[in-house]
């Protein structure tokens, strides 16, 4: 029997809160997860994403709010009763058990007969492509292999939900890219819902169906990767998603757009959260700020780092504003370049929500 996730339609997190003494780690997180979705919880360290995951798993009790699996309330259940699979950041493989026994552990806890366990373990091993490592001890495996065993152990019990806590953060860069593809492939094969915690926006963008950006215990934005990449809802989300230019400027209304004053030059820009005048933050991705002979902003180059296909540069305008931009050709320190940006790619946010 192939491994496929159990039936459920929806996981509902309703105002999940968790405090540690006086620290408010989670402040009312609400989210709906559909069957088969890949959700990434993204945010800087301390934003509460791991706390949220641990509450989902049952390793932490909720201080407030509730968790529902379809019509069943599950936040009062012990972790062993929830039936979710979890992949830990440090893998947490039982060091005294072979790979096969590790993977089959959840099944033996359920009282599944041994021959059935053996078949399912074989299947799980082939899904994670570790077929011949079954009898080894975890200590004899490489980091990437341990990672796969941890994943196999979580999926073999056919959970409705798989929780992953920064599973790739301990691997080297090349392995991380390989495993990203593997994780997505396994997710689609099994058909379970996956909630994936990470601080790496590249991982989130490439893996998730929807991304939940968190900060200081709150959800700042939920959206598809495209939405988050192209239209972050707040300035802090924009900054986290790579909008490195966070310019504190003045805006004036101009038809459907606004004009912002950057480096003494008036630049048309797109308002995002309804703001139209006053002190704002203009967020621009460095790759959207292009060097062009007809550009309106003059900037003196301060540094230029070679990155192969382009140069990552920083420069300063006449009035001292620091800008980060990219250039296709080499620029030298002290050179004056002219920059331009498409109005649709200059996003304006009110300062209050920053």
């Amino acid at each position, binding site marked *: 029997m192939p491994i496929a996730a159990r039936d459920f339609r929806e996981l509902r997190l309703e105002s999940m809160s968790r405090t540690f003494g006086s620290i408010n780690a989670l402040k009312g997180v609400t989210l709906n997860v559909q069957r088969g979705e890949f959700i990434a919880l993204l945010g800087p360290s301390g934003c509460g994403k791991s706390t949220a995951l641990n509450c989902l798993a049952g390793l932490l009790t909720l201080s407030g709010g509730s968790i529902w699996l379809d019509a069943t309330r599950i936040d009062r259940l*012990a972790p062993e009763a929830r039936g979710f699979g979890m992949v830990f950041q440090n893998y947490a493989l039982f060091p005294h058990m072979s790979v096969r026994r590790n993977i089959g552990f959840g099944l033996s806890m359920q009282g599944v007969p041994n021959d059935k366990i053996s078949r399912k373990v074989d299947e799980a091993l082939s899904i994670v492509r570790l077929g011949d490592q079954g009898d080894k001890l975890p200590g004899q495996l490489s980091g990437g292999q341990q990672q796969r065993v941890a994943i196999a152990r979580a999926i073999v019990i056919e959970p409705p939900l798989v929780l992953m806590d920064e599973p790739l953060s301990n691997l080297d860069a090349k392995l991380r890219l390989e495993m990203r593809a593997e994780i997505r492939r396994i997710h689609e094969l099994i058909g379970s819902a996956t909630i994936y915690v990470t601080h790496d926006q590249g991982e989130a963008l490439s893996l998730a169906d929807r991304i939940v950006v968190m900060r200081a215990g709150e959800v700042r934005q939920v959206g598809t990767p495209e939405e988050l990449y192209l239209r972050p809802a707040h300035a802090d989300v924009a900054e986290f998603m790579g909008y490195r230019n966070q310019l504190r400027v003045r805006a004036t209304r101009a038809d459907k757009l606004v004009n912002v004053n950057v480096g003494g030059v008036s630049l048309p820009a797109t308002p995002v959260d309804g703001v139209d005048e006053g002190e704002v933050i203009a967020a621009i991705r460095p790759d959207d700020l292009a060097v062009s002979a007809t550009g309106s902003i003059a900037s003196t180059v301060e540094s230029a780092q070679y990155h192969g296909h382009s140069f990552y540069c920083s420069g300063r305008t006449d009035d001292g504003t620091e800008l980060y931009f990219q250039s296709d050709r080499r620029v030298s320190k002290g050179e004056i370049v002219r920059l331009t940006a498409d109005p649709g790619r200059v996003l304006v946010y009110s300062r209050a929500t920053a």
Partner: protein
Amino acid sequence: MATEKSIGERLWATAIWALVFIFILNFIAMVATVVINSFGTRWFNAWLPAAFTTRWYESAWNEFQLHDVLIVTFEVVGAVVLLSALLGVPAAYALARRNFPGKQLVILLFLLPILVPPITFGIPLATVLYQTHLGGNMSGVVLANLVPSVPFVVLVMIPFIEQIDPRIEAAARVFGAGTGRLFMYVILPLLAPGILAALLLVLVRTIAMFELTFFTAGPGSQTLVVALYYAVYAAGVRAGQSIDAMAVIYMLTTLVWLLIALRFVDPTQIVTRVKREAAA
């Protein structure tokens, strides 16, 4: 973890806590008995003594020559602490920083006096000491107590030294410090808390160390714990109040140092620092 405990689990937990509670209660009651008896005039066939007095302390002080005994105890303990530091800390440094051939053997050598119980090696040791005329006086007692203490200091200090990044020492050398100044300005200040912890532990252990002193001490070189033993041994069936007064004085001396030690050291280290090395 987020669980609601079952009745069975709650019962089991209660039973365990009850065990711990009974253990501690009995222990405290035992200590209390000693203390109360030392202050009692007469205590027979009742929950508490008839009346309270402090004369037993005076009587114990004189009867057991506690003044001399205390001086001897502190001289012995002081010598043991000092010498075990002088021998042990450099050895620990060598073992922590150098991986020479035979290192495992040396570590085993230092483990043995701690793992082998004092009686087993104490009798042959006492024999040798008496033969070299060191037995029966202070030097013999100090030497005997040093045997488990030096390795103890070594094994306690090794992890402390390993914690100091060797690159700090390298940096000091790069900036011109010779070995002497390296020790004085870099290593000893960084090690000070560790050395203090180790020495406090040695101090506390040596005050309570019975068998070794018992086998090597003469009349003028008994430590407090040995004097206490003799007092109880000679007392017969019923321990007298003055013996209890002496016991209270003994308890105070150990506990004072224990309290000081606990400010710097986690209680488990008194027991486990060494055993971690044994297990590793």
